């Protein structure tokens, strides 16, 4: 089944443009009013369009006193005009401004994705490619029930909840989840079996459990989910050894590029020049003096069953990789390296967590690739990479950067990309 939704991108919705509203009003169904809204702040040169997200479990569905709102079989939220009282509660609880009130009729109405048309009229009419229609079906269909508790404790703007939720939704609940002391300790907040280890022995402990499962013929996935500290620095040897032994472990490293749980200290994956509490900025030092360790490539080069990079801005890509890893771990080691922004430690606005990862990909700072038994391939190749300055400008951890540091980071990024590109070339 396809679950259609309207998608907005950041191409720039110009102030004063009304094309989508006109097309919506003229879409040929009742009421002859736009079911989307334009939000404009001309003095800020800000303009966007608010639409219904066709949420899978929206509050509008719960709040309707007559049950007039339903998620219908076509995958969008519909209002039955016969039972709608026009009370407006759904309008009030929707955080996206997706529901309209038809004042003279005392009814509510909303976008029905132009049901019956190939593409929604607004998306078809938008001259700036701001609006498009997205079919979320394949992604959602692969999801299993959510095993995480409704709320998980993270800092404001941290996207780890999303990573953890999507990861477990993709893998299902036949999982033993291994975690070490870190920001993302799920322990009793997930409905899967949880094994808390020391920071130093996550891969080693999972090796022991996985071998016992192997001996007793149990297929349960041994899933390690931990940060860059336990992976790249003090337990790197244990991860490398488990990879070499081909242990049946699905290892997901969420890389926020510093020891964030202890309060933002330098680590092997901290990028060149970044400020942390142990790579300070002053008259003598200008942040971290060394480039980051490229852990994902190092693990992939063990020739493991599956290794990949993934990040939030490319959710379909990430889910696809979780699915491949789930298959690969049946016979050996699988590794996913997730770039997970830390607004607290990266010193950036909390709402940028997803956008910053998209920018990290588009400047080639964090290329998306996968490697099956050491054979590398890009999963999203950037045609015209933007300058690295577009990425570092989003975060104050790079706020002290001078031109020379920017050039150095650009050179590191370029060189690493060239190296990766060489890795993806197959010998005939």
């Amino acid at each position, binding site marked *: 089944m396809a679950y259609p939704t309207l998608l907005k991108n950041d191409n720039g919705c110009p102030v004063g443009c009304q094309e989508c509203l006109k097309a919506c009003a003229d879409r040929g169904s009742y009421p002859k009013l736009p079911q989307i809204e334009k939000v404009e702040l001309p003095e800020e040169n800000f303009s966007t369009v608010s639409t219904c997200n066709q949420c899978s479990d929206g509050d509008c569905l719960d709040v309707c006193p007559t049950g007039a709102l339903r998620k219908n079989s076509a995958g969008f939220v519909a209002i039955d005009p016969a039972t709608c009282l026009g009370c407006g509660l759904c309008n009030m609880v929707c955080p996206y401004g997706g529901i309209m009130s038809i004042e003279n009729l005392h009814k509510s109405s909303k976008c029905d994705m132009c049901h019956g048309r190939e593409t929604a009229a607004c998306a078809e009419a938008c001259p700036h490619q701001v609006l498009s229609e997205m079919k979320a079906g394949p992604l959602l269909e692969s999801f299993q029930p959510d095993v995480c508790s409704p709320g998980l404790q993270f800092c404001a703007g941290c996207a780890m909840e999303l990573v953890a939720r999507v990861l477990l939704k993709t893998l299902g609940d036949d999982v033993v989840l291994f975690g070490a002391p870190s920001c993302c300790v799920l322990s*009793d907040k997930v409905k899967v079996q949880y094994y808390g280890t020391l920071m130093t022995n996550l891969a*080693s402990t999972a090796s022991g459990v996985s071998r016992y499962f192997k001996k007793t013929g149990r297929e349960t996935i041994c899933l390690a989910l931990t940060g860059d500290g336990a992976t790249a620095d003090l337990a790197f040897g244990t991860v490398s050894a488990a990879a*070499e032994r081909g242990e049946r472990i699905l290892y997901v490293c969420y890389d926020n590029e510093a020891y964030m749980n202890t309060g933002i200290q330098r680590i092997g994956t901290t990028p060149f020049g970044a400020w942390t509490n142990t790579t300070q900025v002053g008259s003598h030092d200008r942040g971290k003096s060394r480039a980051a360790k490229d852990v994902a490539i190092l693990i992939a080069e063990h020739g493991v069953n599956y290794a990949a990079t993934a990040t939030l801005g490319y959710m379909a890509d990430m889910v696809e990789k979780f699915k491949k890893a789930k298959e690969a771990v049946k016979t050996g080691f699988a590794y996913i390296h997730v770039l997970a922004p830390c607004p607290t430690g990266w010193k950036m606005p909390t709402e940028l967590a997803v956008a910053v990862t998209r920018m990290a990909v588009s400047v080639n700072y964090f290329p998306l690739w996968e490697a099956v038994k050491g054979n590398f391939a890009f999963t999203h190749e950037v045609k015209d990479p933007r300058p690295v300055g577009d990425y570092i400008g989003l975060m104050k951890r790079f706020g002290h950067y001078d031109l020379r540091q920017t050039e150095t980071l650009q050179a590191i990024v370029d060189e690493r990309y060239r190296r990766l590109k060489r890795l993806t070339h197959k010998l005939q």
Partner: protein
Amino acid sequence: MDVKVLSGNKAAAHGVRLARPDVIAMYPITPQTPLAEELAKFHAEGLIDAEIIEVEGEHTAMSAITGAAVAGGRVFTATSSWGLSYMNEPFMFCAGNRVPAVMVNVTRETSSLRGVGGSRQDIMTARDGGWIQIEPETCQEVLDSVLIAYRLSEDPRVLLPVVVAYDGFFLSHQYERVEVPDQATVDKFLAPVSARIRSKLDDPRTLHFSISLAGMDFANYRKMALEAMEGAKAIHGEVEDEFAALFGRRYGMIDTYRADDAEIIYLTAGSCSGTIRTIVDRARNRGHKIGLARLRVFRPYPREEMARVLEGKKAVAVIERSICLGWNCGHLFQEARAVLPDVTNPPKMVDFIDGLSSLDITADHLEKALAITMAAADGQTVKETNWLIWE
């Protein structure tokens, strides 16, 4: 039952084979290496049906067996010296979480890179790790102790890991006559713990295994661990009764030799007890009432039994292979002294350091120790701590 001529390491390997472990994690280190090699050979020949994890270091070895034990498996690892130091973190974690596991430590020096020599220094540094510690005297006892270790460790009333620590080189590499029990009898001996429901990760209600106990919960858990360790003394007795009934051998937590009517006793641990038995016989032939007490189970420390052994003795010669820095003596001396308030007429105690770094504890040294201790018993003033190589 088979009679073989085995080194301590090979005897341990047979003990492990007979216990049918599920997961073994091994990393070589002198003088344990032949044990790792023997187990790999058993595996290659299909004599053990265990997953062997060829780990990259002792830290992972201990972590992996802890994981496998939590998942429900019977496990084994072995190490020595720096390996024991390196695994200290998961070693403490394993006991702290009361995970049943069995390991061997082939004892060795740790204080120098060239300290590839026997001593009891390594295992003494681990004495507060929360593990039950058994220290055999002979290769036969090495094998027997491995089997007893599984019964103790996996007993639901105990659930503490057990380390069998035997003397590097003196036991690990010396060959002796060893009776290797048959599989059926060993299976019978281990049946009470083999049959119990082992896996917590199979139980959907038990979803959480973590270190996150804190405050009152933590204190309660530690109190339970302390009580389990105390309770292990009585359970060790029960296990030994069953072992003796099946195999005809019994060692006790303190193994004594001609000690009941003795006026002066040697107190020691490990392989040098064999030499001391000869010295005791010689002294008895000369008309002196001399005996031996060998401390076999070091943790839990058999306080009550030690008090009974020391009662009525005039003097004690403690012979030891480790030094307790900051106390100017060895560990056996330090801990036996702590029992003296429980003795009505405490004996004089004299400490003798010997046999560090694989140096021999010779008959000559032991005679010297006896002479000094007899002088102390006669009321002469002697040094409290003596180094036998320079006496």
